[in-house]
């Protein structure tokens, strides 16, 4: 387990924690971007170049900006009056801890049987292109359709109603 992995993992987890714990919503959004960047680096660490760059392009490029826009549009940037966490936050925390315990236990339990070091697969964009066009052409079309629908849906949902129609 190389030092780089620990650094990047630390960065991502720190970003994630900040995103969850910070008071100011915009700071949370920025922390989220850090977490996304960390993840992209993890992807690159796992030799998934295309996924990494896609992650950066999609998440940092689009989703982060979207989140920030949403925060500004819903006046989230002012710190909320009655506390940041919901009333019974402890229950949430406990449940999250429980989930992590189970997942952790599952991972550690099966750690021995997981495959060890394997050769880094060299994946060229050409291969990905071919795979997309041959084996995954149906998912590709469906995702295309989904994205268009989401595009139109999001626009309609967030569209400003016409005057007079409150």
């Amino acid at each position, binding site marked *: 387990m190389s030092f780089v992995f620990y650094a990047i993992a630390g960065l991502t987890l720190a970003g994630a924690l900040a995103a969850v714990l910070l008071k*100011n919503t*915009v*700071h949370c959004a*920025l922390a989220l*971007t850090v977490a996304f960047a960390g993840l*992209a680096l993890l992807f690159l660490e796992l030799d998934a*170049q*295309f996924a990494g*760059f*896609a992650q*950066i*392009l999609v998440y*940092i*490029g*689009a989703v*982060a*900006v979207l989140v*920030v*826009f949403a925060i*500004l549009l819903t006046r989230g*940037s002012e710190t909320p009056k009655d506390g940041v966490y919901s009333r019974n936050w402890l229950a949430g925390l406990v449940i999250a801890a429980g989930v992590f315990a189970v997942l952790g236990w599952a991972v550690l339990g099966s750690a021995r049987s997981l495959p060890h070091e394997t050769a880094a697969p060299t994946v*060229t*964009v*050409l291969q990905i292109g071919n795979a997309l066009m041959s084996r995954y052409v149906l998912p590709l079309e469906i995702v295309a359709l989904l994205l268009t629908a989401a595009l139109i849906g999001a626009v309609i949902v967030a569209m400003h109603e016409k005057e007079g129609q409150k």
Partner: protein
Amino acid sequence: MIETADQIFVLLKHWLVGFLPAGWQPVAGVALSVVAIIAFFPALFALTVWIERKGLGRMQNRIGPNRVGPLGILQPVADAIKSLTKEDIVPLSADAAVHFLAPLLLVAAVFMGFAVLPMGRNMTLVNMDAGLLFYFAMGASTELAVFMAGWSSRNKYSLLGAMRAVAQMISYEVPLLMSSVAVVMMTGSLSLTKIVAAQNHYTWGLPHWYIFTPWGFAGFVMYAIATTAETNRSPFDLPEGESELVAGYHTEYSGFKFALFFLGEYLAMFSISGLGATLFLGGWSAPFSFLGWVPSWIWFFSKLMLSIFVFIWMRGTLPRLRQDQLMNFAWKFVLPLTLLNLLVAALWRFLGEGWERWVVCLAILLLAYAFMGREGMRRGHLGPRRYRYAE
């Protein structure tokens, strides 16, 4: 001789790296290239600032800076010293951390872009398989930096400027990508070196640059428009919009941070035009076969400076677009045309050699341009201004 001239920098690097122990050499090589880029491009920035101010002056029939040094050549040095020595004022209500981080993130992101540009024959810092994708990924993070700048200074004008900038950059990022996708489709690879290699052969002395193909030329035009918008330059420099928004998102910045923003902007210009050169103008390939002897990096930088000149030229001549016109133009003209361009590129590829593909592609593009331009834009006639206030 020509070879050494062409590969002068590569040889230099290898020569310098040779002094280090073997283990360190690859890392040192990379570090050396990075240092070279970081050194050269800010210098070029200084030069461009001077060119721009002298050029604009000449265009507006005035002399431009000539006090500092002969012909004002030292004017950028003076500016640099001025920005360094100016007091760095941070507004009290500003969000200190984000305020400080914004310019850094911007400059870092733009510098990252240079890593994949093939400045000369085998003079690419990192010859990445998905080079173009990496470049656009880095490009995408600049918007966030702009937003951070605008929001953190807690100033209505800066926030408004930031919002306009982000909206504009997002709107034009899509056409930027789409036009470059056409090139990728034709070369079949995302790596920039392969793209240059694909353009680097000649028939009857004329190079196979993509710009000389119908879809290439349309792609280049769309690309040029998108780049000017991406870098908030000239007709699209609404965010700065000196007349209304003071200095846009970097109003609250002063001193060195302001200089950084300025540097970031020019670096973005260099890298985006460098990419344009690689994609459409054949990167470091010579314009004519018989000029092959000239070192490759000279061609790259000359094409780069050519587009910079065009930027400056546009800044001096074209009026500023209004925000809704700008958005309309992006989503209703540029994007459809780039998509059409993709179709035309596909047609071009499968129609095979021969004059028919020229006629067909040209016909489609011209027709679309005429029809789209005439019909699309008319709808946007200048109706009465409708003000809508934020809720």
